[in-house]
């Protein structure tokens, strides 16, 4: 509605009449974090509405709300000017909202056709019409210029083909609004071209597209309107032809300096860890880790930056011994590392603080102390029995050293805040007396105060000659904390920066290598 009030600024992107879907003042609170904070988002008919932001900016949460998977804590959604309530994915489907999810949501045990028509089977007299389904599936797949047998089991397809099936599945519905969350992450350049052609056809039919991607050049090529999220807030909305890549990066990254955490200068020791040609093949072709080589010095904090799925977590998993199928050579202190299992690797001196604290870091049913001691139980044995005095001493010492705030060591782990839980995971690692500490997103989901404490612990450990690998998606944190930063993209290292020359633009640029629209990159590996 046009407002006569002179106080209001004129909207930069006007013409409200072609808005088909509008999310207004959406707030979504998860326990511990605010994923979306008063976000408004307009979706225009027959246009490609682009949504961008860093990892964790809230894009996927917003899309899940529009697809009926999550419900907003506050705010409303208008479709054609009428408020709608989406309580399930089915509601969204019935209103003509389709979604292509970032992580593939397909059933590997069903055929391509069955996947495309899941929950909207073509039936006659209640029986599935296999012939017409197959016919239609073949049409959809050939519209996407693919040669995929509709009878093939989905699980036997390579990832890129599965992505095509996911797209075909969305096209099989009669959609008015189609959400595409990173649809091109597994596609080759030629396949991306085909997808763009299909998108243009859909636009011509008046379908509104919501398009999420990290590939900024690609967005300028296909997008009409660009909305940028940062830290759960909407920071900018602009027509695509008026903007360029540096503008988008600036808006995504923001300009507030990281004042809360700083790195302490310290001398670095000898090379502690040397990794050569670490390779992890991916089921379905290509590499999760593509011949990664690097070294790490004593007392060094080495940051790893990259987009989601770039292979950073897989890298630390490999070093921790969690991926026995990985190949490559590793030296620790000049000695080749032969340990292949996790427990042997821990004995050698590697310890991982995993990305998903709740699932992989902690046993929810156990107390703070039991969690902390889990990886180093053999240190508290006398004969075959655990000595509770030794256990208690070890736990108390860690609680003091890492200043973990607990009433007692016997408290259930679930009673602790995210930050303190994370410190328990770090303590568990420290008790194994490691040489190399692998921290995978150690600050995810914890508040700023706890973050700075974790960073202080990292600084102290590095000063005590521990070598730290620090994986993070938070640009500011990685820039502030790392002595050196390696950037990964599609399983390969695509950039190396010292603390002095690293800046946000360089890291973002390096993390997008191999993602460009005209670049097939190392999609299928090199060898």
């Amino acid at each position, binding site marked *: 509605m046009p407002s006569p009030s002179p106080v209001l600024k004129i909207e930069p992107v006007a013409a409200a009449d072609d808005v088909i879907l509008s999310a207004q003042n959406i707030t979504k609170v998860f326990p511990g974090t605010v994923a979306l904070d008063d976000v408004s988002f307009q979706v225009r008919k027959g246009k490609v509405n682009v949504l961008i932001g860093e990892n964790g900016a809230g894009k996927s949460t917003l899309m899940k709300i529009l697809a009926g998977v999550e419900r907003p804590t506050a705010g409303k959604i208008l479709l054609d000017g009428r408020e709608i309530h989406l309580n399930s994915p089915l509601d969204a489907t019935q209103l003509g909202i389709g979604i292509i999810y970032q992580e593939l949501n397909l*059933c590997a*045990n*069903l055929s391509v056709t069955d996947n495309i028509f*899941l929950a909207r089977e073509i039936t006659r007299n209640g*029986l599935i019409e296999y012939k017409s389904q197959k016919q239609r599936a073949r049409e959809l797949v050939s519209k996407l210029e693919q040669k995929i047998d509709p009878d093939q089991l989905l699980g*036997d397809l390579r990832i890129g083909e599965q992505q095509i099936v996911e797209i075909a599945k969305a096209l099989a519905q009669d959609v008015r609004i189609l959400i595409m969350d990173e649809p091109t992450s597994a596609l080759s350049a030629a396949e991306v071209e085909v997808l763009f052609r299909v998108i243009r056809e859909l636009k011509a039919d008046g379908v509104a597209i919501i398009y999420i991607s990290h590939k900024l050049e690609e967005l300028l090529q296909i997008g009409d309107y660009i909305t940028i999220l940062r830290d759960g807030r909407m920071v900018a909305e602009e027509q695509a032809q008026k903007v360029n890549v540096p503008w988008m990066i600036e808006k995504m990254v923001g300009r507030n300096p990281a004042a809360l955490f700083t790195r302490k200068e310290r001398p670095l020791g000898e090379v502690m860890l040397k990794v050569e040609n670490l390779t992890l093949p991916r089921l379905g072709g290509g590499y999760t880790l593509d011949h990664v080589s690097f070294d790490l010095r004593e007392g060094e904090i080495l940051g790893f930056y990259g987009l989601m799925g770039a292979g950073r977590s897989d890298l630390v998993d490999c070093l921790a011994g969690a991926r026995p199928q990985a190949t490559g050579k590793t030296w620790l202190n000049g000695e080749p590392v032969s340990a292949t299992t996790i427990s042997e690797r821990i004995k050698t001196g590697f310890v991982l603080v995993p990305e998903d604290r709740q699932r992989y870091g902690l046993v929810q049913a156990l107390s703070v102390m039991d969690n902390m001691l889990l990886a180093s139980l053999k240190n508290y044995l006398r004969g075959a029995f655990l000595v509770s005095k030794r256990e208690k001493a070890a736990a108390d010492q860690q609680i003091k050293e890492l200043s973990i705030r607990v009433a007692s060591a016997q408290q259930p782990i679930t009673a602790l805040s995210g930050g303190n839980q994370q410190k328990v995971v770090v303590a568990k690692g420290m008790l194994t007396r490691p040489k190399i500490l692998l921290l995978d997103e150690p600050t995810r989901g914890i508040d700023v105060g706890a973050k700075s404490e974790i960073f202080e612990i990292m600084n102290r450990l590095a000063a005590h000659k521990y070598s730290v690998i620090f994986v993070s998606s938070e640009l500011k944190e990685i820039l502030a904390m790392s002595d050196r930063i390696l950037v990964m993209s599609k399983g390969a290292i695509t950039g190396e920066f010292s603390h002095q020359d690293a800046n946000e633009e360089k890291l973002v640029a390096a993390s997008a290598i191999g993602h460009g629209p005209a670049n097939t990159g190392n999609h*299928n590996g090199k060898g």
Partner: protein
Amino acid sequence: MKSVQMKTKSRITKSDVQQYLLRGRAFIALILVVVVFSYLTPAFLTTENIVIIFKQVAIRALLAIGMTFVILTGGIDLSVGSVVGMIAMVAGGLINQGINLPQFGVIIYPHTWMIIVISLALGTLTGAFVGFIITRFNVAPFIATLGMFYVARGVAGLLNNGYTFPNLVGRAEYGNTGFEILGSGNFLGINYSIWLMMGFALVAYIMTTRLPFGRHVYAIGGNELAAELSGVRVARTKILVYSISGFCSALVGLIVASQLVAAHPMTGDAYELTAIAAVVLGGTSLSGGRGSIGGTLIGAFVIGVLNTGLVMVGVSSFWQKVITGSVIVLAVIIDQVQARMQEQIALQKQQDIK
């Protein structure tokens, strides 16, 4: 239409033959046990004996078919044996004692067909209730059905204070005679229970292969989240699946009570385990999403033939258990080997394409 897949090799390779044998392993095992027992005892392949085997298998197969639906969704139903007992006792009570309504001073004796309808409905509702508990309160199927395993067995005992309902023939003046026909009656010389098994197997086959419901069952077992996000009504489908299992249990309860012309509270004891064994032998994956009704039928026959055959050969009942148990575990090991081989072949194919 152009051929979609490149045929890299046209000749039959060793791995093709291996795959073929592994896929048909349940059927091969069935033929094998039949051949072995026919060789060991000439009485094995007589019409009489085959009819006995079929009658035995019919009961197991009916339960196993219901169980197949449940296991395809990645669940399990431990309550079927107890529900068999409970429904047998319900039917027995309705025939011998009727429905007592003291406040009106009357006892209602329903007709036999009504007793059958009431029993089947009750069994189905029991299953639906379990499914509701599983989906509404997010209880693990193992726990929910373990609970019903105890509850239904308890109810079976409570219905006649632990005693049997004997002589379930009804009385002509009440119009509730003829219950025993279900167990002993023949059509075209074949026992009703066998017809029921074949009929229900056909229905189940159509449900799993031709109905959207069947697709949804497989989808839930394969990737529940993906199914939900595609718009499959996961909770409803699961409740239906447990209802089917409950229906099968009720049917078996009626057949068993009718065959014995009596209802004992321990009827159906441990039937859930033979049903699970048949499903697993038939190649259905306990983690869900993979398997078939046909496989389950074959699995039920393998167990049936094995049991009857071992008895006829004179193997002690203790050895029978040892052998049956070993066969089940062996079947699952072969299952895992096949799955790994298939994965390798799929990887190999992709390598070939590149």
